[in-house]
């Protein structure tokens, strides 16, 4: 019984087999190999689009959405099983901004017009979304954001900047938080807007990450006009919308997805070293750390399953569960990226963006290790998550 099987111990009437059958025919060898080469947080747009459309055609692109909006009606266990099987099969990691962030927010807080306009285009991959939350002075302290929107007729006029905007260079839409009032507590003056990326006055500047890649950006808003019709929720009520979304962001996807993908590359490196008995991957200590990671993976998947079973389909997860899952996903991802680094050994020192050197299974290992430093910082840092959990416990 594999880790993924132990997750789905409940009889699911052949669901797992259906998923596997689909993956074995629809997820092509080319896609899997391309996914292996990806070192970023999300797959590159071309690869992601291929896989997105495959799932879309199958009707499986938005399993966590309510059925009325294109959800699959799966149980929590089925949704997790699906994600875990995708990860285990090395399916490309789809960008979460549309499917798991903007979509659920619109379902929960959007107008009927907004839903009708945007949801189908998220599902069909016609729109590519990015997220405008953080600012240079507002990272962990998101509520202190200063990017300002002033009402002018039927528009908001936005001025300010957003930073760490993943894949902004590919997106045609951005959802963002802006300050519409400076009265009362900081949280009370924030509004949630949607804006086209080709809005006049909106510019994108690349930020190069330490792995040398261009994944994130800074956005500059210079008198960008956003129609009031593109506001989600009431004016000054954006913090509630954002909190709802953050809980999706933290608890929505399978917490084990990224670690499972990394475990796959560790397995490949171990197979690669099968003929070298002195290789570190054969030491009892390396084996033990893998065992501990696999156990944490089982535990986390069951934590997620318990949490998902407790909430109605489509609702965000409770704050405790979502923070635990974010922390565990982070910790396991970083641990797995370290184990991969150690399994690769000295070849991890090579800058593979210039030339491919060493085992094929090790090509993205160093870049992933570098990129995965960010998972404990973005989307609510590990420090912020622990504070949320501690305060929540004290409230009980």
């Amino acid at each position, binding site marked *: *019984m594999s880790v993924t099987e132990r997750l789905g111990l409940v009889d699911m009437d052949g669901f797992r087999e259906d998923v596997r059958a689909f993956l074995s025919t629809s997820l092509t060898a080319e896609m899997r190999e391309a996914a292996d080469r990806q070192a970023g947080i999300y797959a590159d747009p071309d690869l992601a689009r291929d896989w997105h459309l495959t799932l879309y055609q199958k009707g499986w692109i938005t399993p966590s959405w309510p059925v009325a909006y294109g959800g699959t009606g799966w149980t929590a266990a089925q949704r997790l099983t699906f994600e875990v099987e995708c990860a285990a099969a090395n399916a490309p990691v789809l960008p979460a901004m549309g499917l798991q962030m903007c979509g659920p927010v619109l379902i929960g807080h959007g107008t009927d017009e907004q839903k009708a306009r945007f949801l189908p285009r998220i599902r069909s991959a016609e729109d590519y979304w990015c997220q405008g939350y953080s600012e240079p002075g507002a990272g962990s302290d998101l509520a202190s954001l200063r990017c300002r929107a002033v009402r002018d007729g039927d528009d908001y006029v936005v001025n300010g900047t957003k930073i760490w905007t993943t894949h902004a260079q590919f997106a045609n839409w951005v959802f963002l938080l802006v300050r519409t009032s400076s009265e009362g507590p900081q949280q009370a003056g924030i509004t949630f807007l949607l804006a086209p990326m080709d809005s006049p006055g909106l510019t994108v500047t690349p930020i190069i990450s330490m792995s040398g890649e261009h994944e994130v950006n800074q956005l500059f808003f210079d008198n960008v006009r956003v129609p009031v019709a593109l506001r989600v929720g009431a004016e000054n009520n954006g913090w509630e919308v954002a909190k709802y979304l953050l809980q999706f962001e933290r608890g929505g996807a399978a917490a084990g997805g990224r670690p499972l993908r990394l475990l796959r590359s560790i397995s490949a490196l171990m197979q690669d070293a099968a003929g070298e008995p002195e290789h570190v991957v054969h030491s009892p200590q390396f084996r033990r750390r893998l065992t501990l990671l696999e*156990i944490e993976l089982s*535990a*986390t998947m069951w934590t997620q399953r318990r949490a998902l079973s407790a909430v109605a389909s489509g609702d965000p997860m409770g704050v405790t569960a979502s923070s*635990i899952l974010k922390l565990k996903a982070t910790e396991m991802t970083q641990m797995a990226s370290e184990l991969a680094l150690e399994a690769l050994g000295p070849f991890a020192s090579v800058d593979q963006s210039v030339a491919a050197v060493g085992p094929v299974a090790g090509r993205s290992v160093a870049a992933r290790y570098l990129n995965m430093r960010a998972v404990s910082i973005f989307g609510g840092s590990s420090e912020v998550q622990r504070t949320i*959990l501690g305060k929540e416990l004290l409230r009980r």
Partner: protein
Amino acid sequence: MSDAQESRAILKDMLRRMLSNRQGEGDMMARWRQLRDELGLLAAPLPEARGGLGGGFADSALIAEELGCWLMPVPFVATSVIAIGLFDALSREDLSDQVVSGDILPVPALMEDGRVMRVRPTATMLREEDGVLRLRGRKELVEDVDMASHLLVPACADRSGEPLLLLLPAALPGMGWSRYRLLDGREAATVVFDDITIAPDAVIGRGEADWQRFEAVLDRAMVATCAEALGLMRAMLGQTVDYVKQRRQFGKTIASFQVVQHRLADMLIEVEQAASVTAMAVQALPDPIAASTAKARTSQALRFVAQNAVQLHGGIGTTEELALSRYFKRAMLLETQYGSAEQHLARVERLREVERSLIG
């Protein structure tokens, strides 16, 4: 709510009411009788046809968790999970019924050298001579000997070497007892069988198949122990949260310190991860890998939560006066009960290798 859910909720509620106002005091045998006879604790997990609630092992886990939460180290796992579990598995429901009714109270006598987790007995030998059965050997750390009517003794047939399971009256002539106290206040003993004569019907199991049944029963005992540990952890975390809210240092409650909040967060995460592996193991029974995964992970969580509960209580946490110290010592016991984290991690790795070689 389904019928099963409803009866579980009722069971939980009754348990809480009975346990909550009598925490840790009084004579354990009296407490046990009350739980067994007034509440029907041993019957509860049985099928409805046998007077139970039909919740099966999930109810056993629920009960164990509540017993842990209220620090009530009664021999529930020994009787409900091990004795009844084994008797049922050997189709000896007659013996199970005697346990339920309180006519007998068998406790397992597992350890030959006090260290190795669950090897087959090699030093406890049963010899047959002219139709008379004679037993020689020694078992360490047999628990609850002050309450036990019988011992459940794994042994080894002297000629064939096949494994045996014996049910012996605790008062059999020739048994040598040296009794001692455990850290949680219960009584235990080393029992020596110095060539004692036993009745033929004391042999209730024999051979490979029966041994496998016994191993499976021990896996269930292990998972029930995880559930009890979970109860302990929830209680210790709750006590700690209460304490840090009222303890003041540097002009404010220590709950207002960020490192205290983060420590509480880490404790909560450990509790939840332990709850998850336990839930997984309950669901996965009789999968031994899931059971050992649960025991390994829960033992780690238990140590972390117990240590940090004491740490956040500061000086007062190190005193006998506080109930926490009794939880801490009970936690030390449960950490190694039916195998430590290290032993179960090794077992997981071993079983996985077997699994892989079977597949590959």
